[in-house]
């Protein structure tokens, strides 16, 4: 239990610093900016209470907002993403059951499951983020274009990070909650 909290705290710090120090200064083609910090919300354990999920997402979003000086924007997107998460998890099925100790990651639930899970949630985050930023629908297609390109880049980074920080598969029986 304490190890899980500690793991997630470290992940929160590392992802926030990585986002603020490096990725916020990366601009592909002038308007594509990857937001890998949402990996924190993606990788929270299945046992996380629903209310904690929302509160953590809100805090994560607000922290990024403070650095980028867009109060509320990332927070709104993260909260929406966290709200969607339980529905997505119950909708997309996996060959393996959601047993205690399993984490929402590629090595525990397979690449097909993880990629569809990450795609839907990243897309929902980016949709809210970019529309909250423009704040009206007059440039609908330009905004959609930005959403799609940024989603693709974010997803690629998320999947790469899954393989870079690969842990050897654990046996489920010895899994800790």
């Amino acid at each position: 239990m304490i190890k899980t909290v500690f793991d997630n705290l470290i992940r929160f710090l590392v992802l926030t610093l990585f986002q603020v120090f490096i990725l916020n200064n990366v601009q592909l083609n002038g308007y594509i900016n990857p937001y890998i910090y949402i990996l924190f919300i993606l990788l929270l354990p299945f046992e996380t209470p629903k209310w904690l999920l929302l509160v953590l997402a809100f805090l994560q979003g607000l922290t990024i907002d403070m650095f980028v000086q867009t109060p509320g924007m990332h927070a709104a997107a993260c909260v929406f993403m966290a709200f969607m998460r339980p529905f997505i998890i119950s909708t997309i099925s996996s060959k393996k059951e959601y047993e205690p100790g399993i984490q929402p990651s590629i090595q525990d639930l397979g690449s097909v499951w993880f990629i569809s899970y990450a795609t839907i949630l990243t897309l929902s985050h980016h949709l809210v983020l970019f529309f909250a930023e423009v704040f009206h629908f007059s440039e609908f297609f330009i905004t959609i274009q930005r959403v799609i390109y940024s989603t693709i880049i974010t997803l690629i980074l998320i999947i790469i990070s899954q393989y870079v920080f690969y842990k050897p598969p654990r046996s489920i029986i010895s899994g800790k909650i």
Partner: protein
Amino acid sequence: MRNIFLFIWKNYFFFLFLLLEIISFILIVQHNDYQKSSFINTTNDFFASVNQKINNIYDYFNLKEINRQLAEENAKLRSREIKSFNATDKNVFTVNDTTYKQDYTYIDAKVVNSSINRRKNYLTLNKGYLSGIKKDMGVISPDGVVGIVSDVSPNYATVMSVLHLDTKISAKLKKSGQIGSLVWPGINYRKGKLKDMPTHVVLHKGDTIVTSGFSAIFPEGINIGYVIGYNLKDGEMFYDVDLALAVDYNNLSYVYVVNNIFKTEQKLLENKTKND
């Protein structure tokens, strides 16, 4: 009453979601209304100082480009020095203490944070109202127009970049003086658009567009960009002009904040005329 609480308790996930979204959107709307100065004053100094640290690191990578800009500007200034002019008519230059009056003063500042990838882009400068920067002052770089100051705290100022949904800067064609206005259509941070350029004007690719000086924010003749294409839709009164922006907003380091000494006087007079 008890049933309402029970209902909220049962669906607490949805209501908590709603509550947090409402808080977020209140923050966004306040930010959009430019009422964010309070937000900046209380929290921004810490985050701005972190951003400044990050920027100090990135500065090393830009040194070459900045040296080039500064050298270029030095050359420009040196060529304006009185020594580099040949006095053609002694009578004019002997009593020149009343022939010029200063209109603009400049405050140099450093960009500590900036973005180009949003629809509403802002920059943060490392000087605030303690250095004399006020809201609505213009900001220029050696290459051209950068933006307009939107908020100030004691030690920092935020600037609404030209790369913003609401940008509208009065511009003119350098060679003929025809007036138009600059807008940014989004997506590409190197391209802008010029609106309201009447169809009888002869345009060429490569024509320089500069500020008109009408708004009293920017001095006249600061570079904005170059015409790279134009077209005319049937029945339209105005050209649709594509511009290559003169400033690389992704690579800004040192900028000047423009202080128009007579701006308040001009604005007061204009408002008075409007009210009549």
